[in-house]
């Protein structure tokens, strides 16, 4: 379980996360919605230890990400997929995927490479396994990014707007992979602007507004007229998102 308790984070004078509480249980798919600048990326970056918390506590399977020793364990249990892919440019797709399994999980290189190829095959990229990131399209790069995360066999996947740098056609390729992962029971926390997609795959939806988690509801309730939609802030957000 990922547990976020009373998390505060400020950059200089600006408070970006203002007392966040959130639990993500095994098997859940939690979407984080919220307008630009509401702190969604910062929350994800706090979960994977890229930002130091100013107050509060985040644990992943009881490992506290604020303690360097426990962070290592926490990171073995979670994996992140990034908006801008962040693939290693000097390595092929296979090498990108196999690096951490070999170095961190101590899987023999041959085995890790075979696993990487199998993962690429599962996302329809076996033909591009030996290509470098710069030789791949955006959608292909992001699929490699997902494989790189999955290769660590994480219990939790953290995804921050992973389709927002992609055009619609590529977006649907990537979302199809996420839908499959969700139906396989992969635990995911994902930040997205794809409202309809969030609605179809998530078990819960949370809504961030100015650094506060103002709504945390099961998906059906969130989208129900007398649930989340009853809150003017959310109705306004959703109608704006749907217009775009």
């Amino acid at each position, binding site marked *: 379980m990922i547990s976020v308790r009373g998390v505060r984070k400020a950059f200089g004078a600006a408070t970006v996360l203002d007392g966040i509480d959130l639990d993500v249980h095994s098997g859940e798919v939690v979407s984080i919605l919220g307008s630009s600048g509401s702190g969604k990326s910062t929350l994800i970056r706090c979960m994977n230890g890229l930002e130091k918390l100013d107050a509060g506590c985040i644990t992943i399977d009881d490992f506290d990400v604020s303690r360097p020793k426990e962070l290592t364990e926490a990171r073995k249990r979670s994996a992140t997929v*990034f908006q801008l892919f962040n693939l*290693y440019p*000097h390595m092929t797709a296979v090498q990108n995927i196999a*690096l951490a399994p070999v*170095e961190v999980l101590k899987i023999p290189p041959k085995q890790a490479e075979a696993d990487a190829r199998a993962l690429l095959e599962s996302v329809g990229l076996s033909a591009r396994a030996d*290509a470098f990131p710069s*030789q791949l399209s955006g959608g292909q790069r992001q699929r490699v990014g997902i494989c790189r995360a999955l290769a660590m066999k994480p219990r939790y996947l953290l995804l921050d707007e992973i389709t927002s740098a992609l055009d619609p056609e590529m977006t649907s390729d990537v979302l199809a992979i996420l839908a499959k992962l969700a139906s396989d029971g992969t635990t995911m926390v994902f930040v997205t602007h794809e409202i309809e997609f969030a609605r179809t795959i998530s078990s819960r939806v949370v809504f961030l507004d100015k650094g506060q988690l103002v709504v945390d509801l099961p998906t059906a309730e969130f989208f129900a007229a007398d649930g989340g939609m009853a809150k003017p802030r959310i109705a306004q957000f959703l109608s704006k998102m749907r217009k775009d």
Partner: protein
Amino acid sequence: MTFDLTILAPHIPFLLKGAVLTAEACVLALVGSLCIGMIVAALVTSASPILSRIAYIYVDLFRNIPFIVQLFFFFYGLPEIGIYLDAFATGVIALSIAGGAFTSDVIRSGILSIDTGILEAAEVSGLSKPTIFRKIVMPIALRTSVRPLGSVFINLILTSSILSTITLNELTGSAKIVASDTFRPFEIYAVLLVAYASLTYLVSLAIGALHRYLNRDQSGVA
């Protein structure tokens, strides 16, 4: 007086020996500069203010002292305090230290140009700091720095001619000897001009090829 290269014929083996010595010194100094350069670049970009300060002092110091002064200090100065090294070892060490200062600066800018997102991806995947440095930071920094490192290496070759001033008969040193034996400085130094120009030209071709190989993914063909 006529321009007559044939008078150099008997001296060719001697000159070739000098050229081989130049090549040996340069290759060793290249390796030395790269090792020093990578370590110093790591220190400069490290989180420790003390280490990075020390590394900066080294870089500033050795880039701002004429090479010949460094060389004389090592060769004529150090024996005074009981450190004796032969001319070849002194030359290689001096070239490595001087070259290391320039190399580290090139590698440092290669490191700083790496997209932080890439480093964050490596970090969250659980890779240790040393592994990230070895597998990601250094390879990316080196491949983006091939051309500027090549210029540093070419400078190293040119600078190696100064080793002739500490009794080392590398290419320039042996040419000097042949010039004074034959009294034909015009021919011999003309040959030397061509020799250095060809040497550096070949090296720059090799650097271009290495750059293209290491950055082959950027060429547009899969």
